[in-house]
């Protein structure tokens, strides 16, 4: 009798997590495993799938150049947006630190783009960055030659990045602002009494105190920027050429538009592996230098 109760007790937690596990299995684990599985097949939804080994991987890495372009673009996009969002977020957080009416308004305004739909922002910027758009009008006012922004292969990726930074800055500044404000004022005063200059205080006290938040943002930002899709799809369609193509958009095209599921799954698997490696590296290397209280 007693044994039975014990077994029920042990089973109880598992019973409680079953609903979540079922959902995860159906919508996350199965597709994940299936994606890796399909990446070894030549498959287009209609004809019989045939096993082709690492052929898909060979093709995306060594034969078709568009995957490599998308991959490189994604890396540039990731590095650029992550760096500037963290850097500018920190600068704005330090600027907004002092309580004043102006800062309160600035903070709200800065957060505003973040609550707008990505679609709306993409459309607005498409108009702003149009050949005849507002940006070029302003440039023209100062007698600067107009840029072709989204329509030039040298600036298209940059333009997409500018929009992402503009949209995200308020959110990252807000998170960093709350952590800047949570640093006890006595610490800064103590540093003042210890005759540390403003710059030294920032690098020796403020920045280390912010490191847990910065680290968290770094990981989420990196992962999120690898998943960039909607702005590219809407504003440039990956072009001109492949100049602003990114990984997820490449995967989307190969699956939804070209029906080359095997190739798309191979691309997806590459993305998965990269994200796994990134996360492990971050926690191993940077995690050690981060101060947690």
């Amino acid at each position: 009798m007693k044994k039975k109760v014990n077994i029920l007790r042990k089973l109880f937690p598992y019973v409680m997590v079953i609903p979540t596990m079922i959902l995860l299995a159906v919508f996350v684990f199965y597709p994940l495993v299936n994606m890796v599985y399909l990446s070894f097949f030549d498959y287009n939804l209609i004809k019989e799938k045939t096993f082709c080994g690492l052929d898909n991987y060979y093709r995306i890495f060594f034969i078709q150049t568009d995957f490599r372009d998308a991959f490189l673009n994604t890396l540039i996009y990731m590095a650029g947006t992550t760096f500037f969002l963290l850097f500018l977020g920190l600068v704005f957080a330090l600027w907004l630190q002092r309580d004043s009416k102006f800062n309160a308004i600035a903070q709200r305004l800065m957060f505003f783009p973040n609550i707008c739909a990505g679609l709306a922002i993409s459309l607005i910027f498409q108009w702003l960055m149009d050949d005849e758009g507002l940006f070029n009008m302003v440039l023209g006012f100062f007698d600067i030659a107009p840029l072709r922004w989204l329509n030039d292969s040298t600036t298209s990726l940059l333009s997409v990045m500018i929009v992402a930074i503009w949209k995200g800055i308020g959110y990252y500044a807000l998170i960093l602002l709350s952590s800047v404000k949570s640093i006890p004022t006595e610490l800064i005063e103590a540093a003042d009494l210890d005759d540390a200059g403003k710059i030294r205080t920032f690098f020796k006290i403020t920045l280390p105190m912010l490191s847990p938040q910065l680290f968290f943002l770094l990981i989420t930002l990196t992962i999120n920027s690898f998943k960039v899709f909607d702005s590219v799809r809407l504003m440039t369609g990956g072009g001109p050429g492949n100049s602003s193509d990114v990984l997820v958009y490449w995967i989307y095209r190969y699956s939804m538009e070209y029906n080359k599921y095997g190739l798309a799954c191979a691309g997806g698997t590459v993305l998965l592996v990269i994200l796994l490696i990134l996360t492990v590296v971050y926690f191993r290397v940077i995690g050690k230098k981060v101060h947690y209280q």
Partner: protein
Amino acid sequence: MGEIVFKNICKSFGDTKVIENLDLTIKDGEFTVLVGASGCGKTTLLRMIAGIGPATSGELYIDGEEVTDIPPGKRGIAMVFQNYAIYPTMTVRGNIEFGLKNKKIPKSERDRLIADAAEVVGLTPYLNRMPSQLSGGQRQRVALARAMVKTPSVFLLDEPLSNLDAKLRVAMRTELIELHHRLKTTFVYVTHDQTEAMSMADTIILMDGGKIQQMAAPEVIYNDPNNIFTAQFIGTPPMNVHKMRDDVNYIGYRPEKIQIFRDKPTDCTYVRKVKVITREMLGSETLYKLQILSDAENEKEPIMSKSLDMSFAVDEEVYIGVPKEDLYYFDANKMRIRETDMLERLYCTTEGDK
């Protein structure tokens, strides 16, 4: 070397004036304690000396030098904060070293100073630990070592013991007194705890409402208070004070000076019949709460008595007596009356109930 002089200092936060026209001299090499209830301006004064909360107007001199425009780090002072303000991202060594590094003191010299300071406060085995691995008392010592190592001319301490448990607090009190003897620099210590003030200070500055109520040595402030505020702030339980029968002046006497008798005493100036309301045993002494048996409005408030005799029971009716030399008189403005001829006149109004 570190005499601190306040000249006509004012401080306001927004529209609220915290300190108005204050003049004060803190003597070189003394252990001075600023004591008062919260919001009395004592921490404000300390932060002015430190330079992290400058005065609104007035002049401040440290060691004869006007320091109004000198930044905190260049004033030759060190401060221990209430919650220690230890840099949580640095080791104990890093914390102590930070100020020295900023002053560009060479490495060998730094190591020697750190070793000395750590030895004094007993932190040598913990130099490479992070603050989060230390107990409250150890963090307190880090804060002290960090201040000491700078060999400041003025040592500022803002309620440094208030976050420690009772036992450690008493132990640290003695250590701080010893530290002061060893360093022989000016200590300015802020606290709201009159026991701390009494036990550590060379000079107590008692503050209330941004004003200095009395500035004197502990024994003077206890035996010879200037006004009712001082009389009641220093000493536990506080001095019993009530209006005299002329309804203008006040009479006061300390709980520990009250003598309790079963029979009416003849040799005391102040005699009252009382009833025991409560009795608290403290071990060496006993606290009695007493009600004067009188119809007079001015004596309705119960009085406290501290006695070595623990034999009086609750509800027992007894006599209390206070000798002439232990009675204090205060005028209508709650200031002390010291003139003896004045006392003579007042005697008749305080003579016991018939």
